[in-house]
């Protein structure tokens, strides 16, 4: 049974988890965005991101990209494509191919993202139709297809407890362990003053 989360929550947690898994801050922002994007289309975005971050933990960004042999990372490739890099047949498997979807939204037409046995249809409106291809690395092809009516977006994220726990475990690595010095100084108050805020905390 999945938990009812806001899209903003799953985005913030995924971005933190990506940071915890060693991704650069700007890439982690994209990870958060991609997770929420998938959740809004009814997919297990949190589970997909947790699987990707675990599978690629400790591997350098450049070793997950198109210039090095080995499975490609959909975040590295996705950032490259998002920045205007061209899609081509990489002839290499891609980790958790579902995560490519947010980055290959066609500008004008609908496409099919074929990942192994699973085919995902994407439209310019950002809809997504098709089965979750799973997390095993597979080769991916992209081809154009006839336009289709977009599915309505969801306003909430379904997050499984397992995905939540996995992302939280990674996110915790971004928190500095408390020390006597930080307790005394970090908050600047010696422990007696409030730190409340009146803002949504999206940091």
């Amino acid at each position, binding site marked *: 049974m999945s938990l*009812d*989360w*806001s*899209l*903003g*929550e799953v985005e*913030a947690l995924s971005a933190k988890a990506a940071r915890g898994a060693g*991704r*650069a*801050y*700007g*890439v982690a*922002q*994209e990870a958060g*965005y991609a997770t929420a994007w998938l959740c809004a289309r009814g997919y297990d975005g949190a589970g997909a991101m947790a699987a990707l971050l675990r599978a690629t933990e400790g591997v350098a*960004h*450049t070793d997950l*990209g*198109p*210039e090095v042999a080995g499975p490609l990372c959909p975040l*590295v490739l996705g*950032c*490259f494509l*998002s*920045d*205007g*890099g061209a899609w081509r047949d990489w002839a290499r498997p891609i980790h958790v191919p579902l995560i490519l979807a947010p980055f290959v939204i066609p500008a004008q037409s609908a496409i099919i993202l074929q990942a192994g046995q699973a085919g995902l249809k994407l439209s310019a409106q950002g809809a997504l139709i098709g089965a979750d291809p799973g997390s095993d690395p597979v080769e991916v092809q992209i081809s154009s297809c006839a336009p289709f009516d977009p599915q309505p977006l969801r*306003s*909430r994220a379904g997050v499984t407890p397992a995905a939540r726990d996995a992302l939280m475990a990674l996110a*915790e690595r*971004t*928190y*500095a*362990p*408390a*020390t006597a*010095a*930080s*307790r005394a*100084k*970090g*908050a*600047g*108050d010696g422990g007696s*003053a*409030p*730190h*409340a*805020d*009146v*803002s*949504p*905390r*999206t*940091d």
Partner: protein
Amino acid sequence: MKDTAAPDIPMRDPQVVMRLARMGSFHQSRLSFMRILLRRMKAEAWSFACNAWQIDAQGMGHAVYTAKGPERSYSLVAFAHDLPPDQRSDRVIATAWDATFTLYDGVPDATEIARLRANVPLQEAGRITERELTLSRANRSVRMWDQVVQALAAGRQPDHAQVDEVGYLMRTTAVYGSAKFGAADRAMIADRPEMAAPFQAEMLSVYLIRAFVMDLVEHMARALNPEAPRLSPDLRRRFGIGNSTGLGMAPFLMNHPRLIHNWIAAREWALAQVRALPVASEAEITCFRDVAARAAVNATDWGSDHPIQRAKLADLRADMAALLTQLEATDLRAARPWDRLWCWGAAHLSVEGQEQLAALLLEPYGGIVDQAADWMAADETPHKIDGAMDVADLRTLIQRIHPDALSTDWTTPEAQARVWYVSAEKLEPRLGERAEEDLDAYAQPLCPARDAAQLYEALREETGPVAAFLLHHPGHRHSVRRLQMAATHPYAEIRDNTLHADMAPIDLLRAKLSFFGTTRFDPRSDRWLRITMFQNAPFPDELATADPDDWSYPAP
């Protein structure tokens, strides 16, 4: 932005505006979110009702306050608790409060209230849903609370001077909005006209909390003495809602660059409009003279014990005296009165006084400037990077946005003295000393100027498009995104060094809180401050007959 500005008065240079010292001197204005909210509710003739009051003589139970607009209703669901004194903590990590709240989208039925009762009092440890827009809590000012209850129970009104000294009966210790702890995402309400401006759900929550708190204190007095009078309307208005705000808010200004740009651009546009006016009418001149005199009283009444703020207040009082003197000597009926006054202020007033003048100049001109409220929200979908940009153009952009960062010696200890991080113990933003603690592994990228300088260096030997550079240097991705946004959103980027040894986080807090509409900033250190919200504002039951914009300065 609407293009109605006179072309010869440009908006102020972001290199002047986006400085910590100036941001730390911002004042509330017509474009503050509390005022936007009250103006709309007044204009649309919102109605307000207390739909449930199930609070016992010990002050425990719940109440529901519903605000009904033209299309939708919003309900504050308030839970009042009997909090043992030893558990009363304003720390954000507290686990019990005098009262807890949520703003419900619509009018909750008994089933919904039961669900909320099981979650809202737990705050961060509970869960809320897309039906809830905010989650918040408040603690009593014990001294003020007891004084008011005892005075009313004794059949008299509390002492004015003491009321003015404290200014609130409860202070919120957090008001969480958009998406937090399961609450509705901003996107779910962003297309509603009444929620389109920033923080309207949060401001409405606090506005209704204020009404609840006043009703609760009178209820407690009547529990002691059924004949206890209500607070006199004049005295009642003097109570706002207190708030203590700390480092938790500071990263917001750097994490929401597009939003911050829209806030500041709206105000700067408004200022340029007023400065460009060829003449002022008698009514407009009278309005300005009146509000300037009231702002001078505000500067006198505004107290603080903190040395930083005491110095700023001394400046502001001198500035206001100078402004009033100048107004005596100035013929505002002559051409371009406000631009002449502005230019005089830029030459003669401190930064505090200049920013106060900027806010005051908007006051007579609601018909011109209030529309800018519609441009203050932002779609915060991550800014798409233009990967085709040539790295040489990116270097030129950095030269334009961050010239100071490029002339800073980042190897000196004071230039990078600070580290922004989040502690495992509190899960709260903190500020550490780089020299004293090994925190680099946890550093948050809350230093746009330093990061821009590092990017500039990294690009020195590079050629070709940004996309190829980022493929090999992902660590600069966030900086490229920021800088490309700043190219078209110039107020998005703070131009000072937010890691410097002399940086005071309260400057960041005040910039944000001024846009909320808070007054009387009272720093308690360089990292947290106290404020009051909605002090002197008309209550919901008074709004129909009150001026929604005439409460931010002391009564004449």
